[in-house]
């Protein structure tokens, strides 16, 4: 087993070892897809949006992946800041710590996306399964970046977790078809991924602009996570 694999494996184990975390990895997607989706539809109607039931169910799988990956990335960074820096200074080097952290976070993103995807598949079925899987993973990657960035910049766990939830809430309620004011949706990080997921759930294809947008923002999310991990692990002298 290579050094990078061994360190990434330790970082991944660190995150999934808490029994409650494992329960939440399953419970949160189930809650979002089965319960939150219908609430989301009602909110959309109240805000003047026209989010259909099928679309709300599909997009909820993406929100589940986003919520889990955002909070897990935040707490991974907030709780391991000192230990990661010590390991880097001991000789592993900041970049190897960063690569191990991003590998562990993306593996976790894949697991979370898979659970959310399977929940969606069991709940309502998906017309374009590959499109939906890609869109859900884009949600996970974008929020891995957001959570890691907040973890690097905000030291207090309570303030940081509240900030993750605030950004998540603003993102949800200004998403596509959520309000009568469509211009708000143009500025949310998950807009192209949401469009892909809504279209995939309804059996429609998506324009290339949404694909490019979703992958571009997901790649930016991963790049931001890399930068956040590096900010934490780097040497200060």
């Amino acid at each position, binding site marked *: 087993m290579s*050094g990078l694999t*061994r*360190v990434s494996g*330790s970082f991944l*184990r*660190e*995150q999934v*070892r*808490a029994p409650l975390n494992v329960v939440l990895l399953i419970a949160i997607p189930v809650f979002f897809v089965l319960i939150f989706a219908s609430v989301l539809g009602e909110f959309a109607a109240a805000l003047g949006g026209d989010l259909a039931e099928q679309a709300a169910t599909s997009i909820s799988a993406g929100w589940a992946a986003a919520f889990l990956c955002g909070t897990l990335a935040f707490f991974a960074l907030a*709780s*391991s800041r*000192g*230990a990661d*820096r*010590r*390991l*880097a*200074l*001991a*000789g*592993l080097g900041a970049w190897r710590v960063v690569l191990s952290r991003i590998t562990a976070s993306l593996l976790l993103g894949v697991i979370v996306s898979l659970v959310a995807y399977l929940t969606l598949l069991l709940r309502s079925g998906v017309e374009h399964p590959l499109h939906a899987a890609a869109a859900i993973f884009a949600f996970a990657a974008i929020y891995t970046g957001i959570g890691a960035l907040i973890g690097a910049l905000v030291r207090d766990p309570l303030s940081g977790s509240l900030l993750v939830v605030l950004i998540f809430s603003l993102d949800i309620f200004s998403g596509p078809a959520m309000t009568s004011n469509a211009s708000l949706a143009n500025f949310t990080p998950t807009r192209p991924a949401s469009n892909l997921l809504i279209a995939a759930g309804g059996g429609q294809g998506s324009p290339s602009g949404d694909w490019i947008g979703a992958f571009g923002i997901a790649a930016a999310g991963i790049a931001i996570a890399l930068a956040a991990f590096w900010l934490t692990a780097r*040497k*200060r*002298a």
Partner: protein
Amino acid sequence: MSDSKDAPGIAAADLSACGGVDHEGGVPARRRVLRAVDIEKSFHRGIPPFRRSIPVLKRASIEIHAGELVGLVGENGSGKSTLMQIVVGLLKRDDGLIERPGRLGYCPQVPMVWDKLTIAEHFELFAQAYGLGREVAKQSEESLLEELQFTRYRDFRVEELSGGTRQKLNLALALMHDPELLLLDEPYAGFDWETYLRFWEMSERRREEGMGILIVSHLLAEQERLTRVYSLVDGKATST
């Protein structure tokens, strides 16, 4: 060893790459393992125009040779941990020169470990970081577990350990690659009396083997064991 003064922010010199043997009056002296000269550090709080600077270190200098057990004392907030973190590379200095060996062990005041990983997994990760081979790492792990008497907790997660056992792990991780320079920041916090005595015996044994050791504490009761003590007052370190 280079005595040129590097610019702030430039990595400290690696003593192992510079020879590092001093000669005083023609008699070979012990190899210098740490030289920190005129270290300055201020912390900045608040946002402009309400920003204020708090100077902590004002041209503080310390020096340690192989086989020395040196103390660094000072009141709370005097800058002891700040100086140590600058030496290690956890904090950036504003000015000054640092020369230190490549093989350095650091035991932070608060254990920097992962709560969900076991003691064995910590040894594995740090063996990887120090570049130790499988056999050397295993031997080092077993000997430190035995020496600090916490072998039975090897497969326990950190979150399941008492404060004292966490501190033993914290110390063991700094020692496992047999460093040339060992930096200990309040290393015996949480130790019981037996472990406290064992800690000093371990430190003295390593000093006799040629390790340079710096112990930071607000209170050093075992001064007779130390080669010398630096006192950090008003940002300056004076040797006694």
